[in-house]
């Protein structure tokens, strides 16, 4: 009796976990990489991406952050918006955000409002408005402009420099 009860509790937990994934329909995986120069067989240097956690990363280095999303459900999904805060201790590198079929917007107010770079303004110490610079960005969002069919997905990415 006791073992049956434990089994049923476990089953409930398993279903709950599986259920949450499938109910979501969309999964997203975040990756942090750095580009290192390695010598190829011809002795030429070429850029290779390696996981940032396995690399030697210090101040001033550029890190490539990418979010891989996939529709794991059995129906198409729409209005996909991927939101990524610029990681702490890093500064967004201008014009590095990208992703197919996306409209990219930035926030300079902690993610409250978003707009294209040319429309973003911040106030300087004297209260005067100026066009925001890349280091003012707090969040990036990618608005996917087409429906994502089942088993399909994409990748959105940006680069940030470690302070």
């Amino acid at each position, binding site marked *: 009796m006791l073992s049956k009860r434990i089994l049923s509790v476990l089953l409930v937990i398993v279903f709950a976990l599986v259920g949450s994934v499938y109910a979501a329909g969309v999964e997203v995986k*975040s990756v*942090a990489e750095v580009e290192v120069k390695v010598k190829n067989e011809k002795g030429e240097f070429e850029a290779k991406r390696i996981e940032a956690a396995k690399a030697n*990363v*210090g101040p*001033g280095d550029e890190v490539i952050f990418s979010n891989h999303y996939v529709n794991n*459900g059995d129906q198409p999904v729409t209005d*996909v918006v*991927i939101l990524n805060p610029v990681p702490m201790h890093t500064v967004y590198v201008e014009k590095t955000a990208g992703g197919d079929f996306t409209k990219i917007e930035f926030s300079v107010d902690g993610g409250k409002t978003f707009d294209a770079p040319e429309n973003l303004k911040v106030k300087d110490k004297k209260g005067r408005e100026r066009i925001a610079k890349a280091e003012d960005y707090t969040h990036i969002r990618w608005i996917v402009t087409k429906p994502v069919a089942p088993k399909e997905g994409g990748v959105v990415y940006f680069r940030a420099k470690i*302070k």
Partner: protein
Amino acid sequence: MKTRSTKKVLLALIALVLIGLPGMLLAATPPCTSITNYATVNFSMGGVPQTAVNSNTASFTVGVKVKIVVTNNDTTNVTVSPGTTKAALKFTVLNDGNATNDVALSYVAAASGTASPYGGGNDSFDGTTIAIYEDTNSNGTFDDGTDQPSTTINDLAPGSSNSKVYFIVYTPNDLTQPGNSIAVYYLVAQAKWADGTNISQGSINVTNAMAGGTACGAGGTTVDVVFADDNGPAPDAYDGARDGKHSDDGAYIVQNATITVSKTSAVYSDPVNGTTSPKAIPGAIVTYTITITNSGNANATVTVTDSLATQITNGYLAFNTQFNDGVNSCAAGEGIVVDGTCKTNINDGDNADWNVTTANTVTVTNLTVPQSLSKVVKFQVVIQ
């Protein structure tokens, strides 16, 4: 008065902000800091907004960047003159890495022939009494008696607002080199861990005590340690690229007089020919011309003595007590011409005498010879 002091305070505040700002902007991410990234996805299914989905958290740990930057702040060669007045080369030591470092300072005398970074010639000598001083009162200039000798910086935090001024100081009591001689010196700074131990590159277990912070933990975190310094001007044996050391150079230029003396003689007249093609016969008047030249780069005050004692004792010559060479026609009792001016033979405060200061000797004192100029002393003798 009140408004003025308020203004001063305001200016000081603005200055602080201006000075402080670059340092704050530069503030590097401390070693062992974990940087994390995640994304959130919103989407709709069948036109119905669904619960947002979070990604995993991608994280990595920031390593240690070791980079000390030494900069010479002189804008020209620093003059040094013989004596006890110390001469200082000024340097700034900056921590451009991300961990607080101790710094060991040393100086290196450049090899002979090394060009001064500020022109004017090549290194040709080394001083004997050289020491490194800290800018104890932090006023940016060397103050003898206030600034103290020091060869270590304890806990130099990253950022330009934390940079320190140090001096290479030369006490020139041994200086004998001629004017315009050059001595080039390097200040070499070596980064150490904040606990004073040596740093090595690679994958290292870095503790808070080493990094001078709190992110690594007391027991430490294994991170990559990288020397990111440039190759300074000091020879590679003292400072190469990416060796945890950096250097810069400054130079001393000697301000000293360089005196040369030449003496010529010419027969001015004789009792037979007068001043026309005179010959060196008894009774002839001979003019001695002593030229003192200063080819150095500092003014000099010299004393000129010329003894006729031997010739007079032997009865060959007599001193002509009234000088006349056709150029300078002096009054009776004026037998010495200094820089075109007739001087009395007696010791009357005109800095020239004959047979007073020293027997049978011409003595000229307090004669100033400016740099790059000559002065001429003339007197005459009569052949016996």
